């Protein structure tokens, strides 16, 4: 991300939550503007260019979704991350349909928020049209939909390939279990089991077993990260 694109607008009416967000995002190297209600959000959105806007679904004056619609109508193309205490599927889908790019249900872990902000911020940059993603000695061929390490082909099922592709696209960034479910399986809820871990475990065995160094790393309490050493 370029310097100008590390600016984030946080729309949050609860002062303590807002304070925590601003502190932690600032620590993580973002420039943060804060809007406590919908009107302030609209003013900020019109005045500045942001990498991502996080918006609470329930605001004291204008509904978060209405704010998003208004900004979209005003031609603001910044990606939105909806943060909502309304966790139900319908609300999520409605939020996404209204122009939200991603959502997060309260309470959330800050690492999860950061992971999603990174993913969204990258989406707003121009994505290079690569056909082969490379991480260390791993090559993920998006055309033939095959993966190999050090030239040796890794036998993968279609979903396993999709999972590896998503990790590779987010190389070096933490990807949460919920993000994997959302992007690989198109599921907008969290199954209450550790099924993702089991699944990633199998992919990891195929990718990392008997290799010089591991690529898929478990990030405790959050999810996974694909990165080469060094």
């Amino acid at each position, binding site marked *: 991300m370029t310097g100008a694109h590390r600016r984030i607008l946080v729309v949050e009416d609860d002062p303590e939550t807002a304070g925590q967000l601003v502190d932690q995002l600032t620590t993580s190297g973002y420039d943060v503007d804060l809007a406590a209600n919908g009107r302030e959000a609209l003013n900020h959105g019109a005045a500045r260019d942001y990498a991502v806007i996080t918006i609470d679904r329930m605001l004291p004056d204008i509904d978060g979704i209405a704010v998003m619609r208004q900004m979209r109508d005003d031609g603001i193309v910044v990606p939105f991350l909806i943060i909502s205490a309304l*966790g*139900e599927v319908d609300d999520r889908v409605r939020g996404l349909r209204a122009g939200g790019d991603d959502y997060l249900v309260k309470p959330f*872990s800050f690492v999860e928020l950061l992971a999603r902000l990174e993913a969204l911020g990258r989406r707003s940059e121009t994505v290079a049209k690569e056909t082969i993603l490379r991480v260390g000695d791993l090559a993920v061929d998006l055309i033939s939909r095959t993966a190999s390490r050090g030239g040796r082909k890794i036998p993968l099922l279609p979903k396993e390939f999709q999972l590896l592709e998503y990790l590779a696209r987010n190389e070096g960034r933490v990807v949460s279990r919920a993000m994997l479910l959302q992007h690989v399986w198109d599921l907008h*809820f*969290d*199954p209450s089991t550790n099924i993702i871990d089991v699944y990633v475990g*199998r992919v990891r065995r195929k990718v990392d077993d008997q290799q010089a160094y591991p690529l898929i790393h478990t990030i405790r*309490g959050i999810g996974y990260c694909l990165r080469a050493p060094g």
Partner: protein
Amino acid sequence: MLLAKTLGSSTFRLALIAIGTFGLIVSVIFAYVYWSTVSYVRSRSDHAIMTEQANLHDAYARSGRDALVALIGQRIADKSFADHVYVLVDSASAVLAGNLAQWPAGTADQGWSEFRAAVPPRSAADALVRGRAETLPNGDRLLVGLDIGDLDGFTTQIRAAGIAVVVLILVLAAVASIGVTRRTVGRIESINATSRAIMLSGLDQRIPLHGSHDEWDRVAENLNQMLDRIQTLMGEVKQASDNIAHDLRTPLTRMRGRLEKAYHCPRNGESDAALIGDTIADLDTVLAMFASITRISEIETRARKDAFRTVNLVEIAGEVVELYDAAAERDTTRLDLTGDPEVPVTGDRDLLFDAIANVVDNAIKHGRAGGKVTVTCRNGEGGAVISVADDGPGIAADQHDHVFKRFYRLEQSRYTPGNGLGLSLVAAVASLHGARIELQDNAPGLLFRLCFPASTGS
């Protein structure tokens, strides 16, 4: 108290309106009967008078005054003409013949009249007479009449009977409606009394039945059944909240103990980090449980089916099988998908995925390690059916109904991971889709079937 309620009740007011209308109609009918009877009787007597007058007039016209006088004499002597009244006077009003002492006072010389006169020997007292007068060509006046006292009595009796009947009907109707209303109000009052008792003391009261199997007993029975259902639900809610309390206390107690211990120990970066990590993981468990509970409630109360589309059950089941393939492999369980290639149902993909995933998850978790789990989708006669069969220990038949309750855990699975919410979610999803759940013994193992209604799909 009850009488006041009876008189003030809407049933009684309606009864009064009905009685009033009915009474009015009966009165009109009786008035008509009375009027037509009276006019019939009157016309009969008038006819008799006119006939007799014509006879006398003929006698006069044929043979003159003397013949007339003689005929009148004959008539008076004749017993069959006993109720007749005759009087013939000359122009000076002197009586020439007849059974009246004089021309009745106030009677016109011509036409109809009614008067009272003593008619010997029939009645000494004044009888009511209806007569018709005529002036003969020679100036004599002839009056022919009938003693209508009997007829008058007859019509009076009819009138009295009519009024008596109307009054009797009204009184009976009033008594009957008070009785019926009182009964109605009494039954409603007993329902009200039970409702008040329930509001005051609790759900264990029931409305007393009269054993008459009438509509009131049916209302009471239905209300009692509703109360039974509410009581059962309340019991389940209590059971569920006890379970929530238990399941939440366990991780919360763990967290509290851990934090308390850390508070009293000197800071140590490494162990602190582990402690915080464990605490966050426990908190996540608690939050996930909350999420499951609210999700089930949301599905259970959802009436809208906006998100329903025609989806292919096989496709969803295939994705689930693919997702759980790794988990099955870990337990060396064989996970297979068989059946028809396309099984369309109308539903919500995410919810169906979640439900099937839960069932498959259970089958793998509680099935036999090294066993097999088979998912089958079929277009059945009665509608689409998806079944999940394992060859594990199964569930005893008497436990089948319980496993869908929130937080219910079988003794045998008390220590396997899970929160006892999975099948509640499956049940909620099934009910939203109008689908039926069947549990069968797979000998060995459990056969779970989700049967969609026939109309579903396209």
